């Protein structure tokens, strides 16, 4: 079966700094894959390359076997199918929660205002934010903001959702409510690619875990393989370091 998302020999540099080196990774439809690895190992960059927020230097990124990284391709149709949620939420501060969600529904998907608002209302209700529909982002807690950001991405009904350390900017007591949203998404058919420092969560939610080292995949396998019996020496070191903290 064609993988949903496929990176083939992807290389990406920022100036002289090569961030991704000949990286290959396949993610099946509906699969949940976590990207773990030290800071600077390239997790964010991978996600941004899949969403075409960054251009790769070599290799190919495929969505359903279709080369979306091809030169000169319009990124907008791809972005409709691949959503991303950022570490720092990036909600639009001058728009209400509902408007944050409906903006792209109306401007990109062409929904009329009523249909868009209805979709927003439904999603907000589903994730326990119904009463926040009309407030502005700065009146929300960090956890609520991040849940709205997830809803904003979900409202586009993407096939793939990229989550970039979505709990790193949160106070510990707010992490749970955001992770609950992700738990609910698993099994809904959406393909999830999660960059995370939350090892326990990665272990719990992932079908497979991918350990990155210096821009390449050092080890990939089921959570019990990677966390339980890591084969690669660098994975072992990394996990030891993380656990001793």
């Amino acid at each position, binding site marked *: 079966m064609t993988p949903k998302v496929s990176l083939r020999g992807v290389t990406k540099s920022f100036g002289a700094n090569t961030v991704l080196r000949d990286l290959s990774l396949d993610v099946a439809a509906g699969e949940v894959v976590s990207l773990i690895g030290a800071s600077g190992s390239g997790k964010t960059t991978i996600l941004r390359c899949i969403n075409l*927020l960054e251009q790769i230097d070599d290799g190919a990124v495929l969505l359903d076997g279709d080369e979306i990284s091809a030169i000169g391709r319009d990124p*907008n149709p791809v*972005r409709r199918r691949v959503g991303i949620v*950022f570490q720092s939420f*990036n909600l639009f501060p001058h728009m209400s929660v509902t408007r944050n969600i409906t*903006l*792209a529904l109306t401007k*990109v998907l062409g929904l009329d205002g009523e249909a868009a608002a209805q979709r927003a209302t439904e999603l907000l209700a589903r994730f326990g934010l119904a009463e926040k529909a009309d407030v502005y982002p700065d009146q929300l807690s960090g956890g609520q903001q991040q849940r709205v950001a997830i809803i904003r*991405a979900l409202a586009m009904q993407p096939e793939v959702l990229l989550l970039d350390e979505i709990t790193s900017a949160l106070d510990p007591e707010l992490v749970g409510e955001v992770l609950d949203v992700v738990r609910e998404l698993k099994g809904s058919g959406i393909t999830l690619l999660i960059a995370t420092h939350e090892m326990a969560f990665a272990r719990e939610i992932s079908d497979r875990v991918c350990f990155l080292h210096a821009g390449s995949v050092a080890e990939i396998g089921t959570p019990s393989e990677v966390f339980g019996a890591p084969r690669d020496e660098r994975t072992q070191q990394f996990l030891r370091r993380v656990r001793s903290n």
Partner: protein
Amino acid sequence: MALELHRRAGHQPRLTSRQEHERRQRRRSSFIAATSTFVVLVAVVVFIPRMPRWDRVKKSFFDVDQMRDSFPRLIDAFWLDVKIFAWTTPAIFIAALLIALARNSRSPALFPVRMLAAAYTDVMRGVPVILWIYLVGFGVPGLGLERPFNSPLLWGSVALGMTYSGYVAEVFRAGIDSVHESQRAAARSLGLSSTQTMRHVVLPQAIRRVVPPLLNDMVSLQKDVALVSLIGPIEILRQAGIDKAKFANFTPYVVAALIFLSVTIPLTRLTDYLWHRERRRTGGTQVAA
């Protein structure tokens, strides 16, 4: 800790000792401010009239009869300032926004547009306003255009608009630059085009942030309108000059200054108020004393 204090204060009406202290401090500050203001006022009222030449100054600058006589003429002339201001301001904002957007374009094909916009703002801001008014206000009508296109009033306003659009474009550009890249990334990641991103996400935030500096520029513009008088139109400054010459008395200038102040001071206060509100709103936590 602070949060807890706050919460406790919300529940009980009785003041904590810290709040007592702050209230005493505030009262003391107001008292000092009031006393010093009083002392300064007394000094002005008592000592200035005792200056040796005060009588002459009073007669040639603060002549009450002269004020009464000039005031209606000056107000009439001021109406022209207001009109010039009213028709240049929207033109300035529109031109400035277009220039700022041109400077912010990223497409390589638009490189010449970016260059031109940059050159325009540099040239406009690099020459004193008054020089532009002379050059354009005398120069263009000198080409021998037909009425009404030979009016110095028209070209003086155009010159004013040209220079100010250079300044205001820079304000807009600073506003656009101040919107964090992550906002663009978020919008683009949802599939919005770069134009949609600019229009719905970047510009609304940018403009909100630059309202205070824009008002600042409007206060300056309001004053610089008087410069157009130097090429002919009888607006307030020129009318004051005429009156001064006729009556050999400087009072009309003082009246003109007061008329300007009656417009610029409220505008300036409004600007300050908006600055503060913006600072509070963007979470700039205020440091205690």
